[in-house]
């Protein structure tokens, strides 16, 4: 990014998270995390299982509270940011309500937030069109494929226009082909909306394809090994995966992950 310094959206300073402190099952999930994410950035958190990447995302989204350290989101504490509806969340499972039609699923956050009926319908239709599912508004989730369900879930996360999109391995359950198509669509959505995106993934190629910066993490305790800048030009498309710079970056991240995992050889097979 060669532009002037942007606003900081998310800032973490010496952040720690310890589960079950003081007991036999004490786990240091995150240790000394320092990270600044600019507004509008697409950040991937990558690392093997147990590196705390999901935990970090959950701390940012106020699904968990940090044990110590500072964390701010758009100048607010995470609980404050959550109460002000700053977070759109997407999980690995689409977690749609099976008793609601597609459009009613997308309207759900707006219902909770007290939007008027006509406004709900308008916003939901707009977001469904964005994920190219306008024709499926009246369908029920079980009538859609996994990739389509996940697109509904993304529309639902964006419908109330949150500042930050938190995504926890959203395409992890999809086949490779669908996943690559979803990657392209997500990039398009990011370009359209300019959201700050924190994207947790196991997949190196996905992280390299999508993000501005890739945060490589190591397990036990979870730490940031390195933050890799991704200079691949935007917009990216199918051909991006064919250019040498892409492959160099994939190799670089793979090496970093290999080093990170070296301390924990039993888990070496967990990096794709």
């Amino acid at each position, binding site marked *: 990014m060669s532009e002037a310094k942007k606003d900081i959206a998310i800032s973490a300073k010496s952040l720690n998270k310890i589960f079950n402190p003081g007991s036999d099952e004490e786990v240091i999930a995150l240790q000394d995390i320092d990270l600044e994410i600019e507004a509008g950035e697409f950040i991937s958190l990558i690392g093997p299982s147990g590196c705390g990447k999901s935990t970090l995302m959950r701390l940012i*989204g*106020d*699904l968990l509270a940090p044990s110590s350290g500072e964390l701010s989101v758009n100048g607010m504490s995470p609980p404050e940011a*959550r*109460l*002000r*509806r700053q*977070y*759109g*969340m997407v*999980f690995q*499972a689409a*977690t749609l*309500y*099976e*008793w*609601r039609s597609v459009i009613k699923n997308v309207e*759900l*956050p707006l*219902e*909770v*937030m007290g939007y008027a009926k006509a406004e709900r319908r308008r916003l939901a239709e707009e977001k469904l069109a964005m994920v190219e599912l306008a*024709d499926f508004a009246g369908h*029920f989730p*079980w009538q859609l494929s996994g990739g389509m369900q996940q697109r509904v879930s993304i529309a639902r996360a964006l419908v*109330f226009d949150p500042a930050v999109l938190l995504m926890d391995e959203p395409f992890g359950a999809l086949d490779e082909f669908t996943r690559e198509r979803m990657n392209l669509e997500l990039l398009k959505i990011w370009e359209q909306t300019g959201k700050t995106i924190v994207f947790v993934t196991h997949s190196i190629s996905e992280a390299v394809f999508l993000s501005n910066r890739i945060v490589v993490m190591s397990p036990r305790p979870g730490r940031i090994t390195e933050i890799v800048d991704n200079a691949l030009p935007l917009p990216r498309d199918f051909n991006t995966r064919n250019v040498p710079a892409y492959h160099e970056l994939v190799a670089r991240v793979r090496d970093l992950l290999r080093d990170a995992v070296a301390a924990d050889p039993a888990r070496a097979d967990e990096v794709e």
Partner: protein
Amino acid sequence: MASAGAPSEGKLSAKTAIGGRLAYYFPTLAIAVAVIALWEFIVVVFDIQQFLLPKPSAIFAEFMLQVDLWLRPHERSILFDAGGATLWEALGGFVIGCGGGILVALITSRWTIISEATMPFAIAANSVPIIAFAPIMNNWFGITNPASKMAIVAIIVFFPTMINTVRGLTSVDANQLELMRSYAASPAHIMFKLRLNNALPYIFSALRVASALSLIGAVVAEFFGGPRATLGVYITQEASAFDFAKAWTAILLASLIGIAFYLAVLFMERRLMPWHVSFRKTG
């Protein structure tokens, strides 16, 4: 896109659907006919006395006699009066017990501590033979008062309904709750937009069981005494008068009411949760 098929195609599939349904139910019907035929055959061949086991044809003839009486404007059929009275008791108890069970579940599940503290009692109470309280309820409410039977039915169906509802309200997917948290949803929103819908399949499986239990509860409670025109009393009186065909017609009517009750609950279930996996049309 799916509706783009030609109308003739739709008619064709409707026809095959009816054929498919017949084919689907045929084995069940065949078994029913075979069992009744075997019953008749055994009674005739082994010359079994009617007070041990009446012939199905005799039961059916007696039943049709009662239907005939019931349909005549100035006559009365005690059997059908009894069926109506017992259904009223079962239905009243069902509504009070299931309604109460769902309500208590909604209230207690609001506070995890209370629902965790009450669940063991509910599960223990569920294994108590509630029917043993029938004579006591007769004392409390009066032996001929339908309330005495409704009370028994209500207590019988209350616990399974409450237990299932609590389970449905509390076994919600963790990510669903996290989403609600990210919307800063109120407890009322979480309850009525998420938990209650999540509980519907659990509630209906309880209601289906309760529909059968309520009729059993009402009839057995009547065995401990009640007005003449109730199925339980009718059965005991006709049996002690050695009119077994009549006793069996009451059993037949109780079965028919029970099946109708169950189907009514099933119908409501389909109306209220057409989205559920068990009702999805495949293909």
